[in-house]
């Protein structure tokens, strides 16, 4: 059965199932969400108005047995940045959508009344229902109640209070295999779902299966691909320490932004490091190794228990720990895990929110390091939508404007994550030129600059950094279309068997004959589609710049400044 487009119109509360237009057939994941946003969303529309659309798409290989292929993409125009937006996440939703033959779910329009709705989706179509019971509830309560209402097997996409209040840092939460949460983060997609008045989407694939054109070739390619992933030493380290293994190495390199980006090293780095976290997890009977979706062979997630050995949070990432830790000078992992849990429940981005706290600390709203006050503000102000809660929940730039702080680490209004661009310059090119504001995942130059994966580049030199970021951004756009976790890139950069096996799986799945060059071309065309949308929305090359303070304030220990000229940055788009 050919995959279909499922469409929901929230203005007239109608639904339809459509054939996939020929132009969209070769796309999946990010490539598809960006193609649909570019085709159907007016670039100058208000992101929270009726003309914006919210699009979910499984990756090209999602729902198959391919290792690490369970990422779901969500696209829209971002209320935080005003640019095009794609976010992807693990969990169980990508596989559910793919197995019900859904190429993409497009949600458009806006209800005329003040009521709330939910969507439930099966292979037969989408049902729109009024929702009252779960309005105002956090994500954990939503998942529990929705599983009771339908079944434990369903996939769930939901928003917490921050999404309901359309805060521009709000996420969409994705149920994972343990009925815990993953996030479609950054850029405020939860606010867009809130603007459509949808509290949750329940996904029931029944016994649907994904068709494979050449099952034998697919199995053989998946075996080669899986071996490349499993054998790579980065995969093994990720399964032991999680992504938080980065705290110590980024600190050692002098690129760990600390105390609202005023130093590159944090005194408390060891207390919040991956090594310390691993020991705490083991000591308390948690799981250092855990997958965010079925079929993951890297298992960088973990189950973090509290002091009493009770579940506290899972999948806590380096960037979240950095943001709540070093950037706010909090050196207590239990406090950070508590905050991670609260932010998941409210459904708000950990990076954006914690960087906003760092700016608020500089603005005198609270003291640096005061995690108790951070927790109070999260539960008493953000979750309840008080004025202070909304100021922080609308992101770091908003806090800076409100409190007159000029050291505000954002690009296109989105908070700069865990790698200081003065001490690690390639990632600064990614922050500046990304089609979605500051986002390390768009072109992860850290692999090459710091970790020595895929070659090497001096992080304190400008040499080769534009090209490095460009190549990685192109490759990432393509990987984000396959449903693959981005962490396959470590193996792909080092193991010659990995990428050809991925291409072979795409060919075997669809009965086509792509080459590696076609995959690169796909990545380029996705970036160009996204860039063109942004230009039509009013962005120019002058928006591809870092905040002024990076050029004027040297960061210790290297006392480096951001020294790329605008002309140098603009060469990024020469392809």
């Amino acid at each position, binding site marked *: 059965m050919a995959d279909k487009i499922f469409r929901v119109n929230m203005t007239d509360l109608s639904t339809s199932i459509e054939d996939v237009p020929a132009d969209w057939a070769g796309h999946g994941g990010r490539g598809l969400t960006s193609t649909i946003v570019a085709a159907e969303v007016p670039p100058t529309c208000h992101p929270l108005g009726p003309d914006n659309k919210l699009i979910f798409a499984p990756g090209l290989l999602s729902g198959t047995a391919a290792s690490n292929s369970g990422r779901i993409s969500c696209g829209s125009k971002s209320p935080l940045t005003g640019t095009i937006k794609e976010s992807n996440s693990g969990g169980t939703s990508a596989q559910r959508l793919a197995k019900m033959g859904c190429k993409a779910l497009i949600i458009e329009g806006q209800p005329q009344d003040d009521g709330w709705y939910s969507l439930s989706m099966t292979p037969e179509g989408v049902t729109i229902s009024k929702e009252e019971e779960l309005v105002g509830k956090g994500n954990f309560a939503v998942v529990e109640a929705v599983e009771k209402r339908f079944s434990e097997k369903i996939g769930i996409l939901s928003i917490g209070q921050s999404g309901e209040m359309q805060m521009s840092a709000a996420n969409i939460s994705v149920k994972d295999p343990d009925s815990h949460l993953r996030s479609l983060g950054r850029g405020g997609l939860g606010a867009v779902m809130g603007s459509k008045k949808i509290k949750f989407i329940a996904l029931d694939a029944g016994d649907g299966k994904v068709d494979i054109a050449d099952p034998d070739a697919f199995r053989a390619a998946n075996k080669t691909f899986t071996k490349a992933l499993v054998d790579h030493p980065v995969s093994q*380290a*990720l399964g032991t320490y999680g992504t938080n*293994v980065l705290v110590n*190495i980024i600190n*050692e390199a002098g690129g760990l932004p600390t105390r609202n980006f005023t130093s590159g090293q944090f005194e408390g780095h060891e207390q919040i490091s991956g*090594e310390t976290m691993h020991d705490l997890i083991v000591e308390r009977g948690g799981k250092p190794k855990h997958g965010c979706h079925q079929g993951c062979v890297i298992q960088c997630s973990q189950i973090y228990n509290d002091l009493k050995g009770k579940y506290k949070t899972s999948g806590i990432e380096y960037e979240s720990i950095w943001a709540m830790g070093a950037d706010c000078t909090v050196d207590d992992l239990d406090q950070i895990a508590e905050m991670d849990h609260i932010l998941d429940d409210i459904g708000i981005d950990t990076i954006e929110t914690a960087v906003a706290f760092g700016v608020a600390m500089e603005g005198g709203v609270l003291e640096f390091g005061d995690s108790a006050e951070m927790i109070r503000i999260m539960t008493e102000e953000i979750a309840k939508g008080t004025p202070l809660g909304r100021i922080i929940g609308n992101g770091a730039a908003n806090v800076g404007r409100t409190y007159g702080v000029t050291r505000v680490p954002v690009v296109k209004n989105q908070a700069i994550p865990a790698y200081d661009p003065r001490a690690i310059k390639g990632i600064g090119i990614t922050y500046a030129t990304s089609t979605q504001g500051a986002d390390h995942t768009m072109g992860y130059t850290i692999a090459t600059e710091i*970790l020595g994966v895929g070659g090497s580049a*001096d992080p304190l030199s400008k040499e080769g950094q534009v090209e490095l970021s460009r190549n990685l951004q192109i490759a990432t756009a393509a990987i984000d279309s396959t449903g693959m976790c981005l962490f396959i890139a*470590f193996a792909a950069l080092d193991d010659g068997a990995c990428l050809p096996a991925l291409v072979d799986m795409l060919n075997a799945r669809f009965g086509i004959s792509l080459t590696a060059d076609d995959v690169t071309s796909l990545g380029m065309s996705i970036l160009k589609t996204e860039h063109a949308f942004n230009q039509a929305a009013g962005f120019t090359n002058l928006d591809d710049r870092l905040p002024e303070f990076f050029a004027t304030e040297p960061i210790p220990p290297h006392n480096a400044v951001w020294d790329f000229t605008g002309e140098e940055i603009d060469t990024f788009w020469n392809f």
Partner: protein
Amino acid sequence: MRVQVKLFAFFREGRFIKEDRELPEGCTAGEVVDALNIAREEVGVLMLNSRHCQFDTVLHEGDIYAIFPVIGGG
């Protein structure tokens, strides 16, 4: 000469986190790795005073030297 040596991730197992070590003049980064019974192919990143270095980099009095296995994240 005295050099502070720091180990990370599983290199710490059965060794140490941080130690001031007395080393002969002219000692290289690689020789410290060898003396710690760490296989060179397991080494991902070496940093000397917060800058990347190589196995043949010569250490000096007062240096801070960090040894990492192959790791990643993001």
